[in-house]
């Protein structure tokens, strides 16, 4: 919309809306912690989507009203949530049977890096001083049918997050199917990264300049 490179593209709320539009009616969906959680706010009218949270709830509802929080009703980010009518609780082995057994249709995750082959790095920068923590990320990418990434296109310091080869430790190899950023929506195909949609004000050339991996215009 604006010519200035600093302000081109979508707001992350708009990106979340784009993701929500691509999740079909009746899907079982797991949303990662942080930006992916925005997606739940944009389910189009008339669609019913059921949210799974890996700590043991299918049918996760919105954040409770102030004063209604229950510390034993939380999401994977350990924040208080609600359960919708028709929800169910289950233990961890059942929860990850849903994930690894291929029963969850979509997951939406954040990323540190995504490679042109769909490799994802989102759990560690490899910093020896950091406490390593992985949670359910490796299980999600190994088992969920469609793995979407939602992320800023570049790091805060302007470095590419969509790269030829991830330099951070992998979460999974060849697992990402589509990337949603503030600048574009990109499909990961066996033969490369194909631009599905460009954000307002973004040209192919601008996008390629901000992306380390080679991009392709979508073939017809």
């Amino acid at each position: 919309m604006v010519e200035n490179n600093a302000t081109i593209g979508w707001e992350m709320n708009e990106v979340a809306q784009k993701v929500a539009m691509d999740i079909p009616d009746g899907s079982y969906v797991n949303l990662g912690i942080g930006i992916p959680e925005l997606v739940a706010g944009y389910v189009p009218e008339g669609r019913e989507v059921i949210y799974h949270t890996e700590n043991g709830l299918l049918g996760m509802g919105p954040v409770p009203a102030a004063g209604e929080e229950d510390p034993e009703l939380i999401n994977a980010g350990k924040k208080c949530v609600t359960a919708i009518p028709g929800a169910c609780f289950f233990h961890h082995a059942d929860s990850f049977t849903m994930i690894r057994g291929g029963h969850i249709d979509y997951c939406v995750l954040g990323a540190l890096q995504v490679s042109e082959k769909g490799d994802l790095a989102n759990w560690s920068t490899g910093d020896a001083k950091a406490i390593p923590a992985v949670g359910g990320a490796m299980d999600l990418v190994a088992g969920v049918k469609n793995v979407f990434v939602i992320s800023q296109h570049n790091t805060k310091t302007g470095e590419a997050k969509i790269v030829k080869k991830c330099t951070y430790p992998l979460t999974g190899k060849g697992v990402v199917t589509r990337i949603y950023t503030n600048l574009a929506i990109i499909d990961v195909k066996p033969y490369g990264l194909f631009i599905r949609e460009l954000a307002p004000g973004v040209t192919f050339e601008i996008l390629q300049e901000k992306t380390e991996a080679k991009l392709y215009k979508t073939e017809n």
Partner: protein
Amino acid sequence: MINKTIGSAKEAVADIFDGATVMISGFGEAGSPIELIHALIDHGAKNLTVVSNNTGSGHVGLAALIANRQVKKMICSFPRTANSKVFPELYHNGEIELELVPQGTLAERIRAGGAGIPAFFTPASVNTPLAEGKETRVFNGLTYVMEYGIRADFSLVKCKAADRYGNLLYNKTARNFGPIMCTAANTTIVQAREILNLGGIDPEVVVTPGIFVQRVVHVPNPADESKLVAEDRRYPW
């Protein structure tokens, strides 16, 4: 007569020995058996290997057990959370071991341990640092990594209601690791908010069958960990 109820948390944990492997239920504070953990701190067993998803918050519950230098090694998926201070400090100083396991692999290792399955193959962590050095095998053209089942000497579990046979019900997402940990220990010790008469739990909705439980302690008003952390309480009080 079978009566698995026991008078106090203190008696329930009295035979936990130095060097034991102890599973502790909970995902963050939800389902964490804080009164049993505090009894274990009073009891003092050392060199424990603890299997739990996280490493506790503030200076109560699991974090206090670690702070009291009773834990030699943690097996978990997510050792840092918003309010975890104790584990990171000891880890940085090389004073506690960590075995990091993907959350679903952790759950499956516990489930397998409880089901008498020594090892299994999973796709999670293949091609990542967490699979390095582990045996892999190809099934139908895809690579899987071998992971071992885990068994424990003791499991400490929090639930909502129990009867004297050890049948259990849980509360919402506090169920998490409880049911599988009950199956995977030689001695499963449960703290229950409510003790019901036999038949008080509909057999159709029993979550943990009593055969997996050895001891039940009545803890009618378990502490709210996040409140204790917010007040910066420290155990021992």
